[in-house]
């Protein structure tokens, strides 16, 4: 009897404030802010990774495999990525499908700058990843990462549609790990685009103009920067 009496006052709601507190406790989830942001990330990333709109941007051979990937057999629509947008302003993902040449480099950078954030870049194939079979050519950029940041590299020449899909799944995993706390597109201020390279006597990276001018005026310093191939003799230890 005495036990029942001691319990009764606490379960009874006597004031309006108590009633409100009870309602909040029952229907509102409370916890630390970080947990809340985690939940927010989960929702954001779930939506983002399942509706990536790639840019319809084919440079070379890999573009054909990209088209095959979006056709019936491989069906990129399973990943919510079938909407190839013709304009960079509507696209989330730039699949750099093919050799980036020096002549094309300013256009590639401009397209990247025109994409709205959040934006991702996939380097599809050997050429976009590092120059590929054409690396030694005088008009070939040694990988698109010399110009813009790359999220996923897909090897192959060209990568099969399966490989491209695997690469895109890796991108999805990467998106899953993102958090609005540290992604670049929720920071304060305006995000500066990548400066466009300039087509001069050769391709000039706009971020390196001063360095180029200084080195061009100083041939000795320039020559010293080159690493010579040294064929080791027998018995010499490999570094």
């Amino acid at each position, binding site marked *: 009897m005495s036990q029942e009496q001691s319990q009764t006052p606490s379960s009874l709601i006597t004031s309006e404030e108590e009633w409100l507190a009870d309602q909040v406790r029952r229907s509102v989830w409370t916890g630390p802010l970080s947990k809340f942001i985690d939940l927010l990330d989960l929702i954001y990333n779930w939506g983002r990774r399942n509706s990536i709109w790639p840019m319809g941007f084919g440079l070379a051979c890999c573009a054909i495999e990209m088209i095959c990937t979006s*056709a019936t057999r491989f069906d990129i629509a399973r990943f919510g990525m079938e909407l190839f947008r013709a304009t960079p302003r509507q696209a989330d993902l730039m699949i750099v499908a093919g050799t980036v*040449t020096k002549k094309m480099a300013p256009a590639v950078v401009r397209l990247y700058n025109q994409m709205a954030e959040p934006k991702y870049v996939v380097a599809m194939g050997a050429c976009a990843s590092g120059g590929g079979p054409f690396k030694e050519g005088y*008009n070939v950029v040694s990988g698109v990462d010399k110009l813009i940041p790359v999220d996923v590299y897909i090897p192959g020449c060209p990568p099969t549609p399966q490989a491209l899909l695997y690469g895109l799944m890796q991108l999805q995993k990467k998106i899953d790990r993102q958090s609005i706390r540290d992604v670049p597109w929720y920071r304060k201020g305006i995000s500066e685009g990548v400066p466009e390279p300039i087509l001069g006597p050769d391709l000039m990276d706009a971020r390196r103009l001063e360095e180029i001018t200084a080195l061009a005026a100083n041939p000795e310093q320039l020559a010293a920067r080159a*690493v010579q191939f*040294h064929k080791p003799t027998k018995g010499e230890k490999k570094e």
Partner: protein
Amino acid sequence: MAANAPAVTETQMPLNDPQVVAEKIKTQYPDAVEAVSAQGIVLKKDRLLDVARYLHDTLAFDYLNNVTSVDWQDHFEVVYHLTSIDRGGAPITLKVNTARDNPSVPSLVPVYRGADFQEREVYDMMGIRFEGHPNLRRILMWEGFEGYPLRKDYKEPYYEEEKKPFGSRWDQGYHVFAEDRNPWHDNVQYPAHLDALAYKPPRESVPVIEATQAATTRLRTDKIILNFGPQHPSTHGVLRLKVTLEGETVRAVEPVLGYLHRNHEKIGERNTYLGNMPFTDRLDYFTSMANNLAYAITVEKMLGIKPPERAEYIRVIMAELTRWQNHAAALGFLYNDLGAFYTPLIYALEERELILDLFEATAGSRMMCNYMRFGGVARDVTDDFIDKCKYLVNERLPRRTDELEAYMAKNELFLARSKNIGILPRDLAINYSTAGPVLRASGVKYDVRRAEPYSIYDRFEFDIPTGTVGDLYDRFMVRIAEMRQSIKILKQALEQIPPGDIMTGKKNYQVRVPKGEMYGRAENPKGELGFYVVSDGSANPYRYHVRAPSFINLTALNQMCVGHKIADMIVILGSIDIVMGEVDR
């Protein structure tokens, strides 16, 4: 123009012999010929235009196959290959020498308009000026680029050694990255004392066109210049067009190329002969098997070897499967350009996947097959290949061809947008050196498989479909008909294929090609793909030039588009069926 040319009196074969042609030239211009050999007729520089005119008008050499140049270190040599559409046969070779400093040669554009882009390419790559060329500017590299890349003394930034295989590649594990070897630590090189901060790129030129006749409507229209590409969904890659518009009507189109210039020829001259085979895959990446074939037959002609029967049949089967899938995809892309976004293409790609499966089973790769070798093919087809291929050829491909034709060719909207659009008359099609379906749609019955039969095409029964008007519709229908002819050839080849070897001699990764030169060509799905190879007897080609059909077909784009609406220009471009890998190489 061929139409105005006097009646051809000698239509017999001997006119393909350089000695006979040289005699004829000598009777007309006694001082023009410097030397004659089996390799070609060397002409005096100042008589070139006269001789070309004479050959074109009187001897009916109305088709300029190829223009290229060779850097012989002490002088440059410009090489022309000419054929006669009616006579067929192997092309004759004209050569003109020019000094190494301030090189110049008269332009052939007044006689052969197809020389336009090719001469610009020679100027861009070798720095040879063509006097009288209407628009001599760089075509593949940009204006302001330092150096002429195909000269033998040009060294690219990642230059390592003159010829492959490079010494540094023998010892596995002792490698210096190309980036580290280059002092700029990137694939660039700059002239000494370049002030990069003050560099001003040269102003881009704009096509100047004469004032046209008064507008037919009272609406005032402005002349605008529209930049189109290099990133655009219907430019088939990274083509850029500078279009001058009057209202919506196209007044001039100028293609700007080179956005996919991958230095095929420079790399090819450093490579070994066989090392070029995988690079030919990446020329026209839809038709890698056919590219392999064209390159293989060129080098085989120089080596003087012939592949065994079975290999010849396998080659033909692969080339014709390639033709079918290329045309099917081309029709799908054409519909894409017309606005039927993607659906027709998906139907075309369905069968293409099955063909690619066969390629993958045979060569190991879907697209970049790298399958042909000098004297045969890399490996035999799998046991079930013939059965699978027969099923495709007898069941699926004819049905899909019929289906595509039924749904696409008889579509009323398509007819309205394709009939009498982008007409290329017969004489202009020849004069512009167009090739393949574009040439045949204009009513020219010319196919390298018949004109200069290679491999075993002379054994098969097939027709050369031609158009009548030369409009967009004809180009479409010629492709459909060619798909049918490919099926016909495939059926015969699959019945006749014998067992046996697939390689002449033993496998050899480094062939030694005897000294000499060869222009070999094959009828690719896009047109005549030619390889001009000069050998100095070493393991690497001295000069390696590709006559790319897509590139030369683009020369006629302006002619086809002027006067049409801008929406038609897209479709006309689609009907030429270009692939940028081949245009820019």
